[in-house]
């Protein structure tokens, strides 16, 4: 068994510096907000037009004019600000956000990202802000399980799903390890105790580069 979703989120939060402006995607990335290390403060951006987003609203706190990009009622932190959509995405494309943490269907060994649609003919395509975040954030982190439920590795030689952006992913945080895609292939920077490089090489079909800390 690998790291849990909360452990993955906590691991991501360790790599985000104090004072960072961060956009968190839906799902596992959202959990990063619950694991901000003591002594750090992140300013959360939600692309529908807010900086300084607080936690999800409890029943008594719901304000019908205050939601996040996942359309969940949220709250306002001290220092919050509101802005329109063109400003919100100017912030993203203009490289003002230091980090975005997003989920993925596939990440290629060169850092290509596929996270907006599958190839199923019955799914409705919807891209939202994924393409803007992938090209705009200074650091694009992916948080995901390494294998699908049917056992396919989501780190791949080349994406078979439609691309979100090319060569944009800096780090991939998973239940079994932390990976860095790049022009020379995927470097493994951390491994869960239950995993070995050879096993992951076998299951992924990738020539994983050993960048693990030497003990």
């Amino acid at each position: 068994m690998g790291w849990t979703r909360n452990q993955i989120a906590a691991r991501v939060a360790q790599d985000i510096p104090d004072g960072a402006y961060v956009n968190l995607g839906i799902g596992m990335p959202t959990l990063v907000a619950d694991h901000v290390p003591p002594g750090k403060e992140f300013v959360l951006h939600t692309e529908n037009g807010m900086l300084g987003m607080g936690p999800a609203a409890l029943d008594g706190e719901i304000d019908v004019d205050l939601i996040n990009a996942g359309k969940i009622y949220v709250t306002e932190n001290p220092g919050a600000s509101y802005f329109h959509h063109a400003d919100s995405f100017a912030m993203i494309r203009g490289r003002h956000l230091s980090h975005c943490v997003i989920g993925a269907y596939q990440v290629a060994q060169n850092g290509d990202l596929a996270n907006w649609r599958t190839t199923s003919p019955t799914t409705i395509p919807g891209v939202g802000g994924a393409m803007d975040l992938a090209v705009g954030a200074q650091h694009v982190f992916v948080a995901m399980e390494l294998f699908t439920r049917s056992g396919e590795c989501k780190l791949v030689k080349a994406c078979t799903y439609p691309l979100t952006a090319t060569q944009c992913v800096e780090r991939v945080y998973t239940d079994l390890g932390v990976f860095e895609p790049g022009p020379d292939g995927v470097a493994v920077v951390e491994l869960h105790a239950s995993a070995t490089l050879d096993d992951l090489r076998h299951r992924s079909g990738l020539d994983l580069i050993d960048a693990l800390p030497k003990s």
Partner: protein
Amino acid sequence: MAINKVVESAEQAISGIDDGATLMVSGFGPPGQPEAVLEAVLAKGVTDLTIINNNAGAGGVAISRLFAAKRVRKVVCSFPKAIGSTIFDELYLAGEIELELVPQGTLAERIRAAGAGITGFFTPTGYGTELAEGKEVRVIDGVPSVFERPLFADFALVRGHRGDRYGNLVFRKTGRNFGPIMAAAAEVTIAEVGGVLPQLDPEVIATPGIYVDRVVVGADTGADTLPATGTEA
């Protein structure tokens, strides 16, 4: 004569919206949806509409009903999938609606460009993806970029928090979303507001009245968040 853009009813506000019109509709999820104006569009029975809206009929009751009533020929949006609504999915899979899918930031910037007199722009968003297929690509200072055109509409239906007789608008929290940019990108802009005040604080106006043609009062969603919003009658 004293300027007064405030009209009495949503029905009056939508005067001129006919079959085949292109409508920008503000809103991201429920905040910012001009519900009363959309209800009037639905009641008028106009059809063959093109709707520019981030979520293709999700997030608001009235806009969902417009789609369900098959009044929409084409939608330009970034994210048509909706939690708790399958109306768009059914129409799309049945081939009964045309979809132009645009990345969210590109959608916002195309709307902004239209209102700002910008005849096109290059953006890195979408490069190397199927959403850039057929579009001009240039490498500018080493950054591969896709050419995008402005996006105009016949009418913008936006939702403000408060307005005044000049058409000045203030917004509330994440209800601002597409309101200010859509207001500038249409031939005629109709602003639904939670209330009209005699005067708004000039320092907090997010949409100056030059962009707004008609103001109509709809439901009020919340109290003023700032004492400086305006002066009560």
